[in-house]
């Protein structure tokens, strides 16, 4: 009997989460574009779209509560609703970080370009790629993929450290660029945090598929 009433609601929930995931992904990409292409209009766009993401988050929250209250899911169904309820605010926070990157872009774009942003876009591409694969792994309930993605966070952390020391050195050698360098540093920090959040999403997928809690256990 695969046509359970709850199945329709779970499908709706999955669709809504994927829509939120896609929108978050796009916010991150556009925030980075606004920075690398020095496009302040685009940055404003990202900030405006954040409201849409907040709305989506509330909608998913409501649906999760409704399913828990009315359908009383158990086993895999229960783990699915719990995972979605926990992933939703993570996506919303990722979008907030994208918004902060857009804000940094707005400031940076008013000042002369400090240097070619080579490392930062690369770091952003990694973060966006991680996010996309994490959501794919969630959709296909592929715990192995999630475990692999968790390990990729190290690459992002390394990039952050490199960018951090580079920018500090630049600030020391030329204090007049401190403001711009600090903005870039913020942007890098936001990307580093996004990597951590994607890790949390991956851990929730392992919980969904295997009912195992791998949080705080070094990705085992």
């Amino acid at each position, binding site marked *: *009997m*695969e046509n359970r009433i709850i199945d329709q609601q779970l499908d709706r929930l999955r669709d809504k989460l994927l829509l939120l995931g896609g929108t978050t992904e796009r916010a991150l990409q556009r925030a980075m574009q606004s920075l690398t292409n020095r496009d302040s209009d685009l940055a404003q766009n990202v900030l405006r779209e954040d409201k849409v993401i907040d709305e989506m988050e509330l909608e998913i929250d409501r649906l999760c509560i409704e399913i828990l209250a009315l359908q*009383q*899911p158990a*086993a*895999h169904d*229960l*783990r699915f609703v719990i995972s979605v309820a926990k992933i939703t605010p993570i996506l919303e926070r990722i979008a907030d970080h994208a918004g902060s990157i857009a804000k940094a872009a707005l400031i940076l774009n008013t000042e002369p370009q400090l240097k070619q942003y080579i490392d930062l876009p690369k770091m952003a591409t990694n973060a966006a790629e991680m996010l996309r694969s994490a959501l794919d792994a969630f959709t296909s309930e592929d715990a192995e993929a999630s475990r692999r993605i968790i390990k990729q966070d190290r690459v992002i952390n390394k990039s952050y450290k490199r960018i951090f020391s580079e920018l500090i050195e630049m600030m020391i050698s030329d204090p007049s660029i401190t403001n711009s360098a600090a903005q870039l540093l913020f942007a890098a920090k936001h990307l580093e945090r996004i990597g951590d959040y994607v890790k949390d999403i991956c851990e929730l997928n392992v919980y969904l598929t295997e*009912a195992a809690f791998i949080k705080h256990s070094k990705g085992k």
Partner: protein
Amino acid sequence: MESKISISNLNFFYGKAQALYDINLEIPEREVVAFIGPSGCGKSTFLRTLNRMNDTIPIAKVDGTVLIDGEDIYSSKTDVVALRRKVGMVFQKSNPFPKSIFENVAYGIRINKMQTSKSDLNDRVEKALVNAALWDEVKDRLSSSAFGLSGGQQQRLCIARALAVEPEVILMDEPASALDPIATQKIEELVVELKKDYTIVIVTHNMQQAGRVSDRTAFFMLGKLIEYNPTQKMFTNPDERLTEDYITGRFG
């Protein structure tokens, strides 16, 4: 864990039809174990093997062992009346005797000659009614007919009647399935309370009820024990696909 009841290789037949297949199960002392499964899966039959209630069915045949406190209840030496005193039972439909509230509870005490005096009998009746969480509601009308009580009160009266003869194990066959949510909640709270002193086995069709009251859950299907695990595990991450399908309503 200390097993109160230990079942091994239990097979059960109604004539030629086999109703239970090779059941092995340990029921720990002072825990609540819930039996779940679709209608006709054998869970009630199995419950009734634990105090030999099936003996009354002429064509029934039991094979295997059921140990309670290490003693084989199917041994020829077993005193079946004593067994049923030790292993009390509460049914789906409350079945008070056509007597007063007091007499319903006093009945088993008298039959078993447990009372030492009139006041001892009164004390025992009161204690049983208190333990069944019914005393406050009936203490002023103990001599009224039991049939004047509500469905939920009648069911708690039956529990008091079972408790009066000082059992160690209580078997409950869907004790709340005919009750409204408030009466059901009272029975469930009672089950959790009684766990302190008794080992309880409860058959239920209500999955949330199994979740709320039991420590362990056994899932039966077509006469077989499919899975037996801590309740928390059964409802969040069962080992067996069949259990998952059943508790999430994937088959009817």
